[in-house]
């Protein structure tokens, strides 16, 4: 290694220090603040806040919403990434932009669109009400808003990887007479499974933590339509700061576990993909 391909040691140390400082101050400190506030009044208060029936119901609802929203976006995300990366067709670039569009849509709008469709004053509202079907202010509304917000995550993770992997392997399999499904299952899926899992995990983390969009469609009924982030807001507004941060810390903990799992997967995936690249 010569001086032109390696950074000098003093520069390395400086840059590493800069990044540690940047990430520590900018990203880690807020997390530390959450845990500090949660434990300010001791473990007993924090745990009591989590064991509260309303908190438990919020936890259950959050997990349920994520359990419906994430598989929907996984299936759609795989299909979209497969089309975008493996085929050329008119409007392909438009499709890419449309799939990413929900990223650019404010969470408030992501909730609002469902109110415009299914709210009592919305397009289908009167019909739904006549038939006694509740979408807004009930589980379906929470799921729809969450799906909208987390829509691009899986596709976004898969497209660059699938494009980078090219089409040669799939084309070879097709030439040998494999059907589309067989090509996907035997060739594409094994190549993308680690990225897929990490995309799913990110999607899940965002689904559990979404606030703005679900806030518009939730109705905020304690113990019924409150997800964890909404429960945090409620406790915060009741001046139960320790309790609010305790629930927030649990959410953050779920996110950290997710990130840990993702990092682990990437290590595993990195080893396996090493041969393919």
């Amino acid at each position, binding site marked *: 290694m010569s001086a032109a391909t390696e950074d000098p040691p003093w520069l390395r140390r400086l840059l590493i220090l800069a990044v540690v400082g940047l990430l520590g101050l900018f990203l880690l400190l807020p997390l530390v603040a959450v845990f500090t506030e949660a434990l300010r009044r001791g473990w007993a208060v924090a745990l009591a806040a989590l064991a509260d029936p309303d908190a438990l119901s919020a936890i259950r609802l959050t997990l349920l919403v994520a359990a419906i929203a994430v598989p929907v976006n996984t299936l759609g995300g795989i299909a979209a990434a497969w089309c975008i990366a493996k085929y050329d067709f008119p409007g392909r670039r438009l499709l890419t932009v449309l799939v990413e569009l929900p990223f650019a849509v404010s969470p408030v709008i992501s909730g609002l669109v469902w109110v415009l469709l299914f*709210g009592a004053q919305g397009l289908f509202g009167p019909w739904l009400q006549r038939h006694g079907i509740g979408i807004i202010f009930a*589980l379906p509304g929470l799921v729809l808003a969450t799906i909208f917000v987390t829509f691009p995550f899986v596709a976004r993770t898969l497209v660059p990887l699938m494009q980078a992997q090219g089409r040669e392997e799939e084309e070879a399999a097709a030439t040998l007479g494999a059907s589309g499904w067989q090509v996907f299952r035997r060739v594409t899926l094994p190549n993308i499974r680690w990225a897929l899992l990490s995309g799913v995990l990110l999607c899940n983390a965002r689904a559990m933590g979404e606030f703005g969009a679900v806030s518009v469609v939730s109705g905020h009924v304690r113990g*019924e*339509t409150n997800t964890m982030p909404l429960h945090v807001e409620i406790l915060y507004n*009741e*001046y139960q700061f320790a309790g609010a941060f305790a629930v927030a810390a649990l959410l953050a903990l779920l996110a950290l576990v997710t990130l840990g799992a993702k990092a682990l997967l990437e290590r595993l995936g990195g080893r396996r993909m090493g041969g393919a690249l």
Partner: protein
Amino acid sequence: MTAFARRALPALALGLAGGPALAQPRQLLNVSYDPTREFYREFNAAFARHWQERSGQAIRISTSHGGSGRQARAVIDGLAADVVTLALAYDIDEIAARGLLARDWQQRLPHNSAPYTSTIVFLVRQGNPKGIHDWGDLARPGVAVITPNPKTSGGARWNYLAAWAWARRQPGGSDGSAAEFVTRLYRNVPVLDTGARGSTTSFVQRGQGDVLLTWENEAHLALQEFAGARLEIVTPGLSILAEPPVAVVDAHADRRGTRAAAEAYLQHLYTPEGQGLAAKHHYRPRDPVALAAARPRFPALEFVTVDADFGGWQAAQRMHFADGGSFDRIYRPGR
């Protein structure tokens, strides 16, 4: 859509949600505004006991809290509230305008359907270092005032109208001088939170501002909750009589068959038990006996009212808070 799907879809949805609504046949949903959380938590338990004794039925009361306008919008959009207990009559009028309850709802219960009242007071730091005693002090240079945005907070509208009414009652006062006064007052506002609770947090927890304009009940609650924060309440000589109204939402109560319970729930607010609980949570009870018992906490002061001083909520809303109203003009550039 088949009959099966009609029944099955909501059942499926509720079943997935854990099915509290199906498990509990008698249930009331009270959609309320922000500062009533503590009061209704205690009142709900008291009413459930009362209802059990009276009818032999168990009842479960759910509540939803948030900014008054947001809550009214949720009901308009289909949140199936049996009763609404909001910050101002205007918000319930909006629900009535969509045909969900009778237009004359405010005549159905005593005292304009407002079983308790409150007013707007000042919360200052201990020792009142900026010497804030009346509304005029809020517009002085160097005084930072914390109040929420009247566009999103019902409580903030009462704050705004109280300041306006005070300025108009000064010698030589007019709508013009009042507009000039509130403009100077809002020039002193460094943070405009979206709700009353957000403002309290900014003032107490984040140390923003010298004075917080807030409901009397919120001010007392803040003293109680933040005992270490060293705060004082200053009651101005004149303020506004805030009448947070309550109503049964006819369309929902009839559809869900909860009318009897919903009406009993609101009537219970007027009983000695309800009035006592309101006073306990720092709302001024209508019942003179309950009010007298809590007198030291509720000093007498001169009240203006929305009906007498502003021609009712519809007119006040149009003049001050609608688009292009007096509040918007404060923030128009070039002033």
